[in-house]
């Protein structure tokens, strides 16, 4: 990465990056920290991917072939925790670190030392989390939702699970504070809030969501901790506690959390489609309002994860209606992207291909989401493979594809070199085909009655499980190609990138040279009307 961020013309002697390990350990530069976040995210993505492949190998055929049921449960639990907290969230924070200062014309993040801390917590938190595999009783196996009383049956891993969730929460809260302060205080003069690029907007909203719900999760898991070790019974019925209360608290965190995972992805798509359609983003302001509405609604829909738990009739109706309502602002976003493409002059470089796949495949996940809102139908779908299909359709071809689109889109800006477009497209097509082979059959499995989180299944589920497993192996292997393309680009194998990289893209990040110098916008830029879309 060294060549990516050094720029001899621009930096004075005392501004040059430190040498060796100190540069990374003591990093306060937003670009260095962004890079570290992205590298960590890639490592965790591959780690979680290996767990997914172990799961899919076991499910390739009925009968147990490779792992015992308790190990299977550890795999599903850790796969989810690693992917949600280790792959997707750090990747978006890494993108925020790299791009928000460049997009708003700020010299760095507002709180660079806190930035360092919020990153360096993460490797240790994940080391601790993954080390639980080697503890007596094994890794947590209660599902990532950590429902009591089951989670209290975790072995020695239990306090380490809670502590690592605390650490991840602290890191996220600090990251969110940093992003909010940066966006609110450090925008270039003349960049009013409504002139901000959509990626900055969606991240601002996401940061507020993080700030609102991470403490809630911390509270919930702390109560688990005291229930286990300090004789409280917040969630233990035998002591007068309430196990359902945990589920309410968890999902009050959990539902905004899913928008934390997808809103920055919406921002990425909103940056990429205008560039390759050569046409301004349609309805910028209504996109802002739609994202804000989604964020607001995310706080009043949590119990739709709990329709089978037992709720008063009025509660069920309220959560059904509020959940259905989310389809409206989400629809507005999709329609605005389509209107952005409409009568543009599109080309199909890799970032655009990934963004278009998001439009199609995320929408499929949205449809199954709407179906899941309907209470009577949800009673059948709930905790079946239909739900597994649904959230993988929104998380993989939604969030993960957006991260990859963003990496392809901004990689030339970071490294100063173009990636291999041909291989990028191969990676795109392999990913898109295999992701559908993996997750589409899961809809059928769920509807036919296969519950989620089971290590073995009845024989009538064999065929679709086999197909899904083949797709998963294909998808997993395709990601090695992604690693290769990125590494080659970072090593400077591609042709030199211009400062604009693409065909006349809009936004301040394209006004600095490629690779972006170690220090940018030490003097706030003047915003010309052509550099933003609004």
């Amino acid at each position, binding site marked *: 990465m060294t060549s990516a961020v050094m720029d001899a013309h621009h930096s004075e002697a005392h501004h040059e990056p430190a040498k060796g390990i100190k540069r990374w350990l003591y990093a306060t530069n937003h670009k260095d920290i962004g890079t570290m976040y992205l590298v960590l995210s890639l490592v965790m993505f591959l780690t979680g991917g290996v767990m997914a492949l172990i799961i899919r190998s076991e499910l390739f055929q009925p009968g147990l072939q490779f792992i015992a049921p308790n190990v299977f449960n550890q795999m599903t639990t850790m796969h989810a925790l690693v992917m949600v907290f280790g792959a997707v969230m750090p990747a978006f924070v890494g993108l925020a670190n790299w791009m928000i200062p460049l997009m708003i014309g700020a010299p760095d993040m507002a709180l660079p030392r806190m930035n360092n801390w919020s990153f360096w917590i993460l490797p240790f938190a994940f080391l601790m989390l993954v080390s639980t595999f080697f503890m007596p009783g094994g890794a947590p196996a209660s599902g990532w939702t950590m429902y009591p009383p089951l989670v209290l049956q975790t072995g020695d891993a239990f306090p380490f699970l809670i502590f690592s969730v605390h650490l991840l929460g602290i890191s996220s809260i600090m990251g969110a504070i940093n992003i909010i302060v940066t966006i609110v205080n450090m925008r270039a003069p003349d960049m009013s809030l409504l002139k901000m690029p959509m990626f900055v907007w969606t991240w601002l909203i996401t940061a507020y969501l993080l700030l609102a719900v991470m403490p809630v999760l911390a509270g919930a898991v702390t109560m688990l901790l005291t229930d286990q070790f300090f004789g409280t019974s917040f969630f233990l019925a035998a002591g007068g506690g309430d196990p359902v209360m945990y589920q309410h608290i968890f999902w009050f965190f959990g539902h905004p959390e899913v928008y934390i995972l997808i809103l920055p992805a919406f921002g990425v798509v909103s940056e990429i489609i205008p560039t390759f359609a050569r046409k301004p983003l349609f*309805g910028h302001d209504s996109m802002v309002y739609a994202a804000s509405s989604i964020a607001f609604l995310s706080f009043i829909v949590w119990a739709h994860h709990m329709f089978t738990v037992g709720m008063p009739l009025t509660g069920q109706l309220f959560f059904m209606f509020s959940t259905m309502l989310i389809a409206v602002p989400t629809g507005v976003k999709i329609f605005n992207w389509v209107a952005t493409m*409409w009568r543009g002059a599109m080309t199909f470089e890799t970032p655009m291909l990934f963004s278009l796949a998001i439009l199609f495949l995320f929408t499929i996940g949205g449809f199954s989401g709407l179906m899941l809102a309907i209470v009577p139908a949800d009673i059948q779908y709930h905790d079946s493979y239909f739900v597994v299909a649904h959230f993988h359709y929104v998380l993989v071809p939604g969030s993960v594809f957006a991260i990859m689109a963003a990496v392809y889109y901004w990689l030339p800006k970071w490294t100063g070199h173009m990636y291999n477009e041909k291989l990028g497209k191969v990676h795109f097509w392999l990913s898109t085909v295999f992701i559908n082979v993996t997750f589409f059959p899961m809809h059928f499995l769920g509807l036919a009655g296969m519950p989620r989180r089971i290590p073995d299944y009845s024989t009538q589920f064999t065929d679709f499980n086999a197909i899904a497993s083949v797709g998963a192996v294909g998808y997993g292997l395709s990601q090695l190609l992604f690693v290769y393309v990125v590494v080659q680009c970072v090593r400077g194998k591609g042709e030199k990138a211009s400062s604009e990289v693409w065909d006349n893209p809009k936004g301040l990040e394209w006004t600095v040279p490629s690779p972006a110098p170690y220090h940018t916008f030490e003097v706030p830029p003047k915003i010309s009307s052509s550099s933003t879309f609004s």
Partner: protein
Amino acid sequence: MRLPTRPQGEFSMLRKVYLSVLGLLGASRANADWALNMPRGVTRLSAETYDLHMQIFYWCCAIALVVFGVMIYSLIRHRKSVGAKPATFSHSMKAEVIWTTIPIIILLILAVPSARTVIELEDSRKPDMTVVITAYQWRWHYRYTGQDVEFYSSLARTSGDARRLDSGIDPFTVDNYLLDVDNPLVVPVGSKVRLLLTANDVVHSWWVPELAIKKDAIPGFMNETWFKAETVGTYRGQCAELCGMDHGYMPIVVNVVEPQAYAAWLASKQPAATQSAATN
């Protein structure tokens, strides 16, 4: 769930893939051998649930047709390589209002019948009989209230042997692999059966797709649901809420039988009744 029986070791994967592709193209309805869709079930509410599911599915298909249609048209026509010149428009209040209003109308159309079914699902008044279900790691306990009948229901021995790691038993040779129990729940056809659910250790969930019932069994809580099966038969399901190591091994079997057969079964299960008959 009616289960297909397959000849031992037969792997007709390609044929199945081919058939499912045909099925996806809308050529035929799902048959029992390779279910693609939710079962219609054997209660009035399971049929209503199925109809709601299909109704919203068709709405989604219609919306997809329009949205994807516009996108695909745009992808073909508005590309640089066919000489498209980019337009410059960037907002339209009219468009925003239209594509906010139409989804709201569609949602209202869907909300009304859904709400109606939810209200019916919650109406467990005037049951003909009540069964208390207590979930344990990892089996079910059924108690018929007002009768002296209670028993545990666990995974059938045949499946239990085959499911072990390296058991050497081919699951395809086991009837109803993982979906068979030693003591099924038996209920009379056409009776409104109220279920009261609780658990003794962790949260479980009682799910039988053909009855369209899934309800969590939670320690310290007594949950309530009901069904009224209209067809005699054997219906199978599983625990749906992760409940630990053997979560995948606590199936549910419900035998819906004629009232006379039910009465005979109930009598045979009542040790107290048989005892008092002997002493008289």
